[in-house]
Structures are given as C-alpha cells and as structure tokens.
C-alpha cells in the first residue's frame, strides 16, 4: 500500500462525487483516508465464502 499516491486518489474520487476539498482540510483527509485504508485491508485480506451475503434491511 505504501506506493499508492493517496493524494491523487482523493482528488479524483472527490471530483467524482462532487466534493470540493479545501486545501486546509487536505492533510487531515489524507491522514484519515490512509488510516481507513489500513483498517479496511484487515477486512479485505480475509477470505470469505462466496455464499456469504451482506444483511441490509430492506422490506419491499
């Protein structure tokens, strides 16, 4: 993960969701996103059986 340019990802993703990031928030957002990324890998690296579904509550 070290070689990922989080600044680049954050700029593009923010544009895609129409979120303007002010310069003064950038360092904090990058730091927080890096933290989330590290934490997400703990889940992502774990292999789940294909038949495990998420459980959203949706009542038609």
């Amino acid at each position, binding site marked *: 993960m070290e070689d990922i340019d989080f600044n680049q990802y954050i700029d593009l993703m923010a544009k895609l969701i129409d979120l303007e990031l002010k310069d003064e928030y950038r360092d904090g957002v990058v730091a927080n996103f890096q933290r989330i990324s590290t934490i997400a890998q703990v889940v992502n690296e774990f292999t789940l059986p294909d038949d495990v579904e998420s459980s959203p*509550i949706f009542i038609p």
Partner: protein
Amino acid sequence: MNDAVSIATRVREGKITATQVTQAALNKINARNHELNCFTAVTTEMALADAKRIDEQVASGKNPGLLAGVPFAVKNLFDIAGLTTLAGAKINAENPPATQDATAVTMLKQAGAVLVGALNMDEYAYGFVTENHHYGATRNPYDTTHIAGGSSGGSAAAVASGLVPLTLGSDTNGSIRVPAALCGVFGFKPTYGRLSRAGVTLFSSSFDHIGPFATSVRDIAIAFDVLQGEDDLDPVCTKRPVVKTSNDSLHNIDGIKIAIASDYFTQKAAPEALAAVEKVANALNVKDYVSLPEVHRARAAAFVITASEGANLHLDKLRQRPQDFDPATRDRFLAGALIPSNWYIQAQRFRSWYRDQVKEIFQNVDVILAPTTPITAPLIGQQTMILDGEEILVRPHLGLFTQPLSFIGLPVLSVPIQRENNLPLGVQLIAAPYNERMILQVAAVLETMGIVCAKQ
C-alpha cells in the same frame, strides 16, 4: 440520589409529588450544569406542566405509570417536540423545531416519566469523548478535568452527578457503554432493533441502537420494559414479542453459563481494566474463558461501515459547508465519503460471517464478560495513551472492546466498578441476541453482592 423505581413508588403512594421531584431536579441542574456541561437545553416549563399532570392523576386515583414523576433527559439527537434536534452539530441548530417526540421519549412520558432536557454529545455521535467544538466538553463528575466519554457523554454524566436518575443515549460503536463505564453508571445497549430509533438522528444505521443509563439494575430493567414495542416508524425495530424483565425477581443465575472473553479482550488494556473483569469473574466464581474469532477484523469492518454510512448521511453538508463541522469529525467524514464500495460491501459481508461464528459460541455460553474500556477516563484534551508500551490515539481506541460487539447487534450492559480514590471502570455483560434478560439477572446478582454499583 434515589433511583427511578424508588421515586416512582413514592410518587404513586402520594408521599412526594412529581412537581417536587421535578423542581428538585431542575434546581440541581441549575446549580451544577455550568460546571459539568451535561445539558444543552432544559425544558423547565414543559417539565413542570407534565409533573402537574402526573400529580393530578395521582390525586384522582388514576394509574400514573411505572415511572411516575421520574425526571429524565435525552441525548440531543432524540427529537423533542418544540425543540430543534441538535445531534451535537452547529449545522442542525438551524433546523426547525421537531414536531413530535421520538418514540422512546413518548414511551417514557406515557409511563409517567418527566422530560427535563436534552444532553450534550459528540457531533453527529462520531466520537467517544464528548469534547464538542460547538457546545463544549462534558466533564466527568468524578474529576472535572477528565472527559465523561462519549458520544452519549451528557447522558452518562447527568446520571453520575445525580442531576436525573434516568437518561437515554445512543450506541453505534460503544457510545452508551463507553461513557457509562467512564462515569461509573449502568449503560444498556439492548439487541440491535429491540428498541425503536424513530425520531432519533441516525449516524450509521447498520449499527445505531438506543438505550438507557441509570444507577440501578432495576431502573435499567424497567426502562428496558417500557421502551420495548413494535414501531412501524423504524424499519429496523423488531416485531418479536416484548420481553418483560422487571416484574419478577432477577436475582437467580442458576444454570446461566458465564465465561470471560479471552485473547483480543485481554490485550491493549490497562491492568485495572482487566482487574475489573477479574473482580466480577471472581465474585461469580467464573473460571472459564471463551475466545471470539477474528475480533480485530470485526472492529475494522465496523470502522469502515461507520465511516462510509456516516459520510453518506452528511454528504450534502460536507459539500456545502464543511467549515461548519466540528474539526474533530469533519476530516473523518470527508475521508469516509471517499471509501470504495468494495470495502464497504466486504465489511458488510464479513458482518454476516462474524455473526454466524459468534452465534455458534453462544451455544455453549450464555453471558460473556469483557472490559468496557481499555483505560479510565482520559484528561480533557488528551490525544494519546500508552497501551502495551505503544502510544496510540485516545479517540478511536476507547471503543476497542465495545465496537466488535455492537457490530453484530449483541445486547450488552456496562456495569460500573467503583475504585477507591480512583476513576471508575466498566465491565461488559454480553449475551446472544434477544437474551437481555440473562444479562440483567447476572447484573442484579452482582449488584446485590456489592460488586457493581453506580456513583452515589
């Protein structure tokens, strides 16, 4: 201070009036709130009018309800008719007043309880500290240089300081249990979906629960009973039958299998947090340990889902006016908005897997013991703490032991452990979904033994 049940009993028997009790609570709030900063609104006129109505019912021989004349207050994310619901945010202060009470507020009022105000919290419930940039920090009644914990900090501190005997909070990752532990009171998070969240500002709907704070097990039980019931206004609210816990004696734990959570729940904790669990285990003569699988991944998945759902909920405001957010939540929300969908979906699928694993474990054990927080209440403004020789951030880690449990909606009661000349701690009593009664039975026995008790 008297607990809610003793107040209601005396009101029903005509030994004291609801008006007297309410006025006394209002006086205490006036005298101490400037120091503790628990309340963001005090509903004096409404409270006295409600108390008068209870007194009229008592005088005319009508049943005023199980909680007759009991003053209570709610975290300021519960709707209160006539008041703007702040959810700890400056942005929400511009909203119009709520037109009706949250379901939980209505239910407590119908049982005769008297609402006296709204309580401080972390902005949008995103925190464990209640050091709110807009509305100030809530202070710990044991030592006002320390935090009350959060995000339901006002709810915990108001009970611990004796301002009111009963409050409501919400718990997404530990926001009832953490402040309950740090303020030395009982804090109960029933099973996900057990209590209606209608009229409550959500944070991360996958995990949002509500629940009571109180100074006795019987108060927690009676509040739990009163707050139950189907509610079409909350799609998550269960249609299971109501379970009454306060009618008969809870003081029997014969046949209840209890074990101590091992591995993850014994690491990165201060010695006193583990000693609190040991104290409870010894009192109950519990020697067995139980290991939950992949707990660190459960916490990680909860973190990803919370960040993602929370950010989505506030995305419009993050676009339009990020400068009006609390700096402590803003960057986390902004970062959460950028999470790839795959991370979120994988975390949700992991949640199903983990639920099934833990369900298996509850085939062999009924109640599991674990610390509530890894440390006692940090100082106000404290950024880091040392655990296992490692310096780590205070804010996210206060939920180390609570987050993996709310992740799958397990019912958990944090019971208070008082420590002479020291800040209190909490121990979590954890059960399988919908097994709240067993938790209350174990808590009632511990209370009778004098092992757990709230700040008096």
